[in-house]
Every structure is written in structure tokens, then in C-alpha cells.
């Protein structure tokens, strides 16, 4: 974990050393990565079928955008309210989904999340519908691109630290136990649903933080942020980086964002490439890059014997 801390500190100097587009891309990676990590908290560690996580990202972003542009409240209030609204939406939708298992959980979530999308798309008096809201004014301290990046990096750092603490806490251990065997957990007296609901609220809160950071980065929000396609794209990032590792989704987000920017510039068939990458991953690298790396290290350490089983234990 020490190298991650070092990398994080080093990134604070990025605006001095790197070009502006590089800094912007780093910002996109951090925001997307935070979103992917918040999803992984539920899927990789919690075993929940959180199929429409993007909806909460959108709720966070729209809340901030609407409070800033439609009310006279200070912009900081809007930025702070975003994650809270996302967590509240998480609580409401989560308590409906939590009554059911697995696939049903996922299907109902896609349905309810799509309702939020319809709302953003159709309540155009409030949300400008399809066009989205642009040119959202930010607090003075965040208006320079360098200072916005520093803020982003600081917030993402704090969030990662908090997520790490949560996963290392007894609560995190219980969550993983529930993922691996919910029946046994219930039998020993753990309130499974309450734990899962708490995890949903925590994860949607961080998704809301990512949404607010998107507003800081781009100054815009639009309905696509709540569309189901984005939610499944975040899954690809988690899968690519590694379900069962802490920083894997961040790595996955970095690779997808870079690929999209570089490859997207050369071909109009980016979606096709993404689909092929996804299917290759499912077949050949189901634990993701960091998961495979981790297994390789275990394998070497033991010097002999088969590697430990890991792949399909996921959200199963």
C-alpha cells in the first residue's frame, strides 16, 4: 500500500510537470476510478448484484448541479449535498432491492435506476432534459484547472483511505463473510440484510462523491450519466482491474479511459473493441490484472502446488 501512497503524493505535482490534457485525463481517471471502486465495494467485497450503480453517480452530480444553478445557496453546499442525496437514493432503492436475492436484486435495480434516468431525461423544466446542464459555476477556489485537480486528488485520496478502513474493519470482514456464505452468516446471528443495506448506502455515498467530482472536473451534467450502459461499463473496469483487489478497479478505469481516448481517436468502432476486450477478459482473465498478479505472487511464494482458487468466487 506504501507505493500507492507515494504515487498519490507524487500526483500532486502533476499540474507542474505534465501538460494540461494529461492532467485533465488524470482527473477523468480518478473520478471514474472512484466510481468503479465504490461499485467494487458492493460487488467484489459485498457480493451484491449492483447492476445500476451509475444511477447514484448521476444523482450525486445532478443534485450538486441543480443546487448550484437553481438556488442561491453557496456552491459548496451543492457539492456537499450530492453524496448525501446519492446515499439517500441508495437507501430508498436499496431497501426495495434488498428483499430479494441476486438476479432479482439486479433486475429491480436496473428498473428503478432507469426511472431516475427517465426523470433526468424528461423533467426538462428542471434538468434541461437531453441537453444537460452546462457551465455550472464552481467556488472561486476550484475554478483554476490546477486547483480543481488538487482538490480532486485530495478528495479521492480521502475516499480511498476511508474505503480501505471500512473494508479492513470488522464490518468489512462480515461483508465478505456474507458474500461467501450468506446462509451460514444468518445462522450465526448476523443480520445479513442490515449489513448489505449499510454497504449499499456507503457505496452509493462514494458514487455520489464521484458524481460531484465529475461536476468539478467538467462543469456539466447530462442524462447519459444515469443510463444503464455506463453502469455496465463500470463493471468492465472492475473486472479488468480485479474484483478481489482493493485498487484493481482504479487500474481498470485508468486502462479503459486511456484506451477510449487513444483508440477512440483512431476508430469509430470503439464499442466493438470494448466488447471484444470484455469477452477476452471473461474467458482468459476473470480475476483481472491485479488479481492475476496477486495469484502469480502467491504461486511463486509457495514454489510448488496449484494456485489458490479465486476466479468465480465473485459475487456468486
Amino acid at each position, binding site marked *: 500500500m506504501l507505493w500507492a501512497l507515494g504515487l498519490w503524493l507524487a500526483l500532486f505535482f502533476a499540474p507542474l510537470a505534465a501538460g494540461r490534457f494529461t492532467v485533465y485525463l488524470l482527473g477523468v481517471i480518478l473520478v471514474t476510478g472512484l466510481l468503479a471502486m465504490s461499485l467494487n465495494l458492493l460487488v467484489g467485497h459485498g457480493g451484491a448484484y449492483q447492476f445500476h450503480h451509475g444511477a447514484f453517480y448521476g444523482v450525486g452530480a445532478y443534485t450538486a448541479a441543480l443546487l448550484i444553478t437553481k438556488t442561491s445557496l453557496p456552491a459548496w453546499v451543492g457539492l456537499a449535498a450530492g453524496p448525501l442525496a446519492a446515499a439517500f437514493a441508495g437507501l430508498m432503492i436499496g431497501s426495495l432491492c434488498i428483499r430479494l436475492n441476486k438476479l432479482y436484486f439486479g433486475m429491480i435495480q436496473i428498473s428503478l435506476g432507469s426511472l431516475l434516468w427517465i426523470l433526468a431525461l424528461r423533467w426538462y423544466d428542471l434538468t434541461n432534459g437531453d441537453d444537460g446542464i452546462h457551465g455550472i459555476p464552481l467556488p472561486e477556489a476550484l475554478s483554476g484547472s490546477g486547483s480543481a485537480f488538487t482538490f480532486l486528488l485530495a478528495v479521492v485520496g480521502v475516499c480511498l483511505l476511508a474505503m480501505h478502513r471500512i473494508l479492513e474493519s470488522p464490518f468489512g470482514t462480515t461483508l465478505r463473510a456474507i458474500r461467501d456464505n450468506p446462509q451460514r452468516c444468518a445462522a450465526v446471528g448476523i443480520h445479513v440484510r442490515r449489513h448489505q443495506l449499510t454497504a449499499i448506502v456507503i457505496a452509493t455515498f462514494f458514487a455520489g462523491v464521484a458524481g460531484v467530482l465529475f461536476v468539478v472536473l467538467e462543469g456539466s451534467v447530462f442524462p447519459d450519466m444515469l443510463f444503464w450502459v455506463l453502469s455496465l461499463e463500470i*463493471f468492465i473496469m472492475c473486472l479488468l482491474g480485479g474484483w478481489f483487489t482493493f485498487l484493481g478497479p482504479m487500474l481498470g478505469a485508468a486502462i479503459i479511459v486511456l484506451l477510449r481516448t487513444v483508440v477512440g481517436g483512431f476508430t469509430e468502432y470503439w464499442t466493438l473493441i470494448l466488447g471484444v476486450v470484455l469477452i477476452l477478459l471473461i474467458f482468459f482473465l476473470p480475476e483481472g490484472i491485479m488479481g492475476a498478479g496477486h495469484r502469480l505472487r502467491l504461486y511463486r511464494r509457495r514454489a510448488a502446488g496449484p494456485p489458490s482458487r479465486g476466479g468465480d468466487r465473485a459475487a456468486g
Partner: protein
Amino acid sequence: MESSFSLAAFLGQFLVGLSRAMILFIVASGLSFILGVLRVPNVAHGSLYMIGAFAAHAIATALGNHPAGFWAAMVGAPLIVGGISLAAERLLFRHLYEREHLMLLLFTFGLALILGDLTKMTWGADYRSIVPPPFLQGSLDVLGTALPRYNLFLLLVGPAVAVALWLVSAKTRFGKIARAAAVDREMVGAIGIHVSWVFAWAFVLGCMLAGLGGALVSPTISVTLGMDHTIIIEAFLIVTIGGLGNIWGALVGSLLFGVTQSLGVLVLPQFAIVFPYLAVVLILTFKPTGLLRSVW
């Protein structure tokens, strides 16, 4: 706002809602069938619906928009979609059945991404349109409302598909094995039945329904890229409120969806689209597993 709220207008609107529900049903029943047997929410279902529409257009155009071309398209397009889904299942999908559901879902998403771009490579981005045969063009006067003949035709096709699907799943050996395999595949395998092929044909049958839906809808809309994204969410909602994997649930869900929206237009046109979604929220709040019994 003056909307004449007569009984005739109400009935006309109801019929139109029913005909809209038929397309939804054909697509959603395929999705539900795959869910029931394979337990996979097939995200690529929308893409196959789109391919069905494009293929129908290609066939109809190749036959010079002759009336026979329309019928050839209605038969040929689902077959093309069936071929694509059979290839995807045999080459890739079948190796994943032992994996957990999330991987299966993500696989179908990958398939959707690839099929979307392949459709564009094959057919391009132009708008396309199919002409129905002459006797299905124009409209009929039903209770003072001009109902397009094609919508009335859909009212006949929908129930026919429902009955056919019911016969296949309840009366044929294939249907019985498929349902049994969904409950306990080891057991069915143990008594010497080749489960893998049963799953393959179940997948292909479900996908062909998506293709048929796409072909049937093509004369009423413009066939374009992106039509996959709109249908899949509606199909998901319908299957969820109907009860996962339950074909009759898909029918109930489609009727609810089509008719609430159609009647919503009559009452409050501005917010018509919200009615089906409201119905979904209400149903899921009070009956989270859907209206009819889910098959699992």
C-alpha cells in the same frame, strides 16, 4: 385542453395499446424464456431485435419490395438472428454456464457491444423503412377511430406467438426438458439427456423471438441504429413485473405496459410515458417478485 373522452375513443385507444403490447410481448417473452431456462438476463436481446429489423429490411429490399418480400422478411429475419445466436452460443456462451451469473450477464453485454457495431459495419447508419403488403396499408375505421390495419394485424400475431410458445414449452419434449434442466441440470444430465444442446436451442428460440419482434416492428418505425437501447429497458421492466422467467408474466407485463401508456395518452398526454413506470414502481413495492409466480 379538450380531449373528447368518449367511450369510443377509450375503446379505440385501448385497442391501439393492445397492439403495441403485442410487439413488447414478443420481445419480452424471448427474454423471459431465456431467463427461465438459462437464468441469464440477456442484455444482447435488444441488439438481436435491432438486427431482426435490419435483416427484415435487407430481405424485403432484396426482393424489390414485392408483397411476398414482406412475408419472406418476417420469416427470414428471425432465422438470421437465430443463426447468429446459435453461433454465439456454441462458440462462446456454452463454455460459461458453470460460471456465476455476473459473468454470464457481462458476456451478453459484450455481445451487445459487438453486435451493435457489427450492425453498423454491415448496414450503415442510414434510416430505413419497410412497406407492408398493400392489404395491411392504410387504416380501418373502428368505432370512429382510424386504426392502422397493420396494428390490427399485430393483434392477431401476438396471441398466435403466445399460444405457440405455450405449446412448445408445455407440450413438447424439448420444452419439458428445458424446464426441468432449469431446475436441476445435473439431474437431467444424469438421465442421459444432452443438456448443453437443450440450452442452446432454448437460447436460440428466445433470440429468434427478439428477431421476430424486430421484423414485425420494422414497418411501423424507421429502422436505425440505437433502437436496441430503447427496447431492452422496457423488456427488462416487463419481465421483472411479470415474474422472471414466466412467459404469461411477460404477457401480463406487456399488456400493462402498452395499455397504461396508451390510456395515459388519453388522460394526460404530457405524462403518458410516466404511467407504465409508475405501475412498475407500485407493483415492485407491493409485490417485489412480480405479478405472476417466478419460475425460480
